[in-house]
């Protein structure tokens, strides 16, 4: 696919954005151009070569950082990035996010060259307490290391760290840390195979 639009955005400089040069790829035409522009205004830092296919929904009240060559694809449902107040969401270079939901209430860090399959859901907070529904729930940072592959329909819950090169099978619910290079799956996710990281 050739980039259809590549524009230097002057509008974002007054919002302390450091580097913005958003490229919207062909695939949904003017819509992606418009969404790239809107995303550029919302992010704290946006890398080069962002690729947007479809119509993502970005609700940012905190700190959103998107690295270089990130792809945000919205094939099956809109990719939703919701960053709460004083929360942080970082997406590393070359990560591909397809039709996923990321709800960051505290901190979600995604490494470089990760792949998120459709309908992956990140929740770094319980949103409300288990016993008392009116109280705030617990939250914990989600840290995804580099080159992690996450299968479709996987839920990743608060306080989880996933090691480098790990792979999650589709439909798993990750409640505990996954070591580097592991192949894990199930509800709750268990390590099925350990592989060496290259």
């Amino acid at each position, binding site marked *: 696919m050739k980039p259809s639009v590549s524009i230097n955005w002057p509008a974002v400089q007054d919002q302390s954005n450091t580097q913005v040069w958003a490229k919207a790829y062909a695939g949904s035409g003017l819509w992606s151009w418009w969404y790239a522009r809107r995303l550029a205004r919302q992010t704290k830092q946006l890398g080069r070569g962002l690729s947007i296919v479809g119509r993502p929904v970005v609700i940012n009240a905190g700190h959103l950082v998107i690295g270089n060559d990130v792809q945000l694809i919205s094939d099956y*449902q809109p990719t939703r990035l919701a960053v709460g107040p004083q929360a942080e969401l970082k997406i590393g270079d070359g990560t591909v996010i397809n039709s996923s939901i990321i709800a960051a209430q505290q901190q979600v860090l995604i490494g470089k060259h990760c792949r998120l399959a459709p309908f992956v*859901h990140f929740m770094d907070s319980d949103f409300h*307490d*288990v*016993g008392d*529904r009116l109280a705030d729930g617990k939250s914990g940072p989600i840290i995804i290391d580099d080159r992690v592959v996450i299968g479709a329909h996987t*839920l990743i819950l608060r306080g989880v760290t996933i090691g480098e090169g790990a792979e999650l099978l589709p439909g798993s*619910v990750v409640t505990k840390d996954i070591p580097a290079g592991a192949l894990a799956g199930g509800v709750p996710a268990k390590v099925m195979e350990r592989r060496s990281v290259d």
Partner: protein
Amino acid sequence: MQELIEGRLTMGNRVRFWSTIMPVQLRVAEQAELRIADNCYINGAIIAAHEHISIGQGVYLAPMAHITDSYAFGSPEAEARTAPVHIADHAWIATRAIVLPGVRIGEGAVVGVGALVTEDVPDRAIVGGVPAKVIRYLNTGEEPGEPSETEVV
């Protein structure tokens, strides 16, 4: 929000719908009944009634929770296999949990994320997994100072 109401839908006071993550979908077939009591919070859930679903007071339904009372997978014979679902007061059905036909979810119970509920859930139990099993029970007394453990599986 998407609704397809051909049967009877009863809704109490102060029922709240959110469609921010997913659109709430309510489907009530002909001659079916869906009852939603007061103070329910319904956030992006899918409720498909083919016979009878009743939801008690103050129930929380999280995004993509799927509540159905029939094995409706397209064929008419499958749709004929229905069983009523009852969700008691103050239950919480977490994200992407699925409640199958004929299940009663107890009062104040918590269904963990991604759980597949195939059997009745006792009062104040926390269940999770596929199929859902009881993980532990919530404190029966009201102890606001008591820190609660993780809700999920």
